[in-house]
């Protein structure tokens, strides 16, 4: 599979070129356009693999869709254009045997031999991170495409690093993280608008996004008509 990121960085999409028999698994709704030699199948788990109802439910809690779309090229040299909902960037991550933990809605697509699962981060982290309770866990070898709200920036952590939870896109699981107060006191942290932050430690790569989707939603929401 070859890829190209177009309209970078604010309206980014990924254009993928698939050889015959190659499959890419995408978030439902990610497909924008494609050539006609691609078959689309929808499952709640890995393509051709065993059941995924529970996995599907877990993914739903992770802010992803219950279903996954699998695009398989039936002829050589097929192209597929995929993109996220919000304005922002798309990045490619080359996963080599490790695990990448991805913020609920930032997973866009991955190679078929990458296992996509939702991971439970524990009650404390779930309740206080202000994001979805689950994260998407991608394990295996191959390409992973991540999307962000706003621009993406990479941080190579060696030691400790603090990030506001809403700005996390993904991180390698060689990193440990815990949810801590941003300031000295809990009230001070919330008054400062930072609330709780993520404190990473260890060695590994972290992808952050310049803008925080829940903050944007909360900023525009009150200006909309009540539902």
């Amino acid at each position, binding site marked *: 599979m070859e890829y190209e990121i*177009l*309209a970078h960085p*604010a*309206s*980014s*999409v990924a254009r993928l070129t698939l050889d015959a028999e190659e499959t890419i698994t995408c978030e*439902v*709704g990610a*497909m*924008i*356009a*494609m*050539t*006609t030699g691609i078959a*689309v*199948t*929808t499952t709640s788990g890995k393509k051709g693999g065993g059941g995924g109802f529970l996995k599907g439910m877990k993914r739903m809690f992770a802010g992803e*869709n*219950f*279903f996954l*779309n699998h695009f398989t090229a039936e002829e050589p040299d097929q192209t597929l*254009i995929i*993109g996220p*909902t*919000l*304005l922002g960037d798309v990045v490619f991550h080359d996963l080599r045997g490790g695990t990448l933990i991805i913020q609920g809605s930032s997973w866009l697509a991955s190679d078929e031999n990458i296992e996509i699962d939702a991971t439970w981060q524990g009650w404390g982290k779930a309740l206080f991170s202000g994001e979805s309770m689950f994260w998407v866990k991608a394990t295996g070898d191959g390409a992973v495409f991540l999307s962000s709200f706003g621009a993406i920036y990479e941080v190579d952590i060696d030691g400790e690093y603090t990030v506001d939870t809403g700005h996390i896109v993904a991180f390698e699981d060689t990193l440990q993280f815990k949810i801590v107060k941003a300031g000295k006191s809990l009230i001070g942290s919330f008054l400062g608008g930072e609330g709780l932050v993520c404190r990473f430690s260890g060695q590994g790569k972290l992808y952050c996004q310049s803008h925080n*989707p829940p903050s944007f*939603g*909360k900023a*525009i*929401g*009150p200006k*909309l*008509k*009540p*539902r």
Partner: protein
Amino acid sequence: MSTLDFEITQRPDFAMVSVRLDAGETVFSEPAAMASMTPNLKMKAGLKGGLRKAMGRLFSGESLIVNTFTAESDPGEVTFAPGIPGDVEHYFLENNSLFLQRGAFLAHSEGIELSAKWQGAKGFFSGQGLILLKASGYGDLFFNSYGAILEIDVTDEYLVDTGYIVAFEDTLDYRVVVLKGSRPAKTLKNFLFGGEGLVCQFSGQGKVWIQTRYVHPFLSWAYPFRPVKQRN
């Protein structure tokens, strides 16, 4: 090729088009598209092409009114920017036709006719107004998008999610087909079986312009942030 002297700037996220008019030249735009202009241009709002054509435009999601900008005695410049941040593309019509998705029209030069084309069942099943605006004649046409515009050269067959179509040449044949599972589920039925998306299947030879974002999924994303109405 073009008849107008123009420049598109700030592509692809905040694109706008500036048109330099010679004395006596005219350009037409979607209402409210004018961002700035030299004071010597004369602006006139009106129902271009008679009431029937204007009603047709309204039907296709465009405005009833088309604004006319004329440089009367001296040259001048006008800049048009679409209401939604995104891209702007130029197309030169040489007595052929281009179809535009609703809301995609920005401006055109003299010599271009706009009319609505009701797609009948094609539009009906798509449920999202595949009611197209048809631009034909000889001259310049400017259209806009949400997100960036990508140009696709179709030589055989190509599929585009209906929501992402911006424009296409009339040399292409098209039909709307259902693509199972390609959209998030909205009802219980498709929650259990996967949502259905509608794609436009193009065939033949010609160009299609697609946008990299679509407003509707963004609105669905924003919906849960709306306040809940108080019930007394």
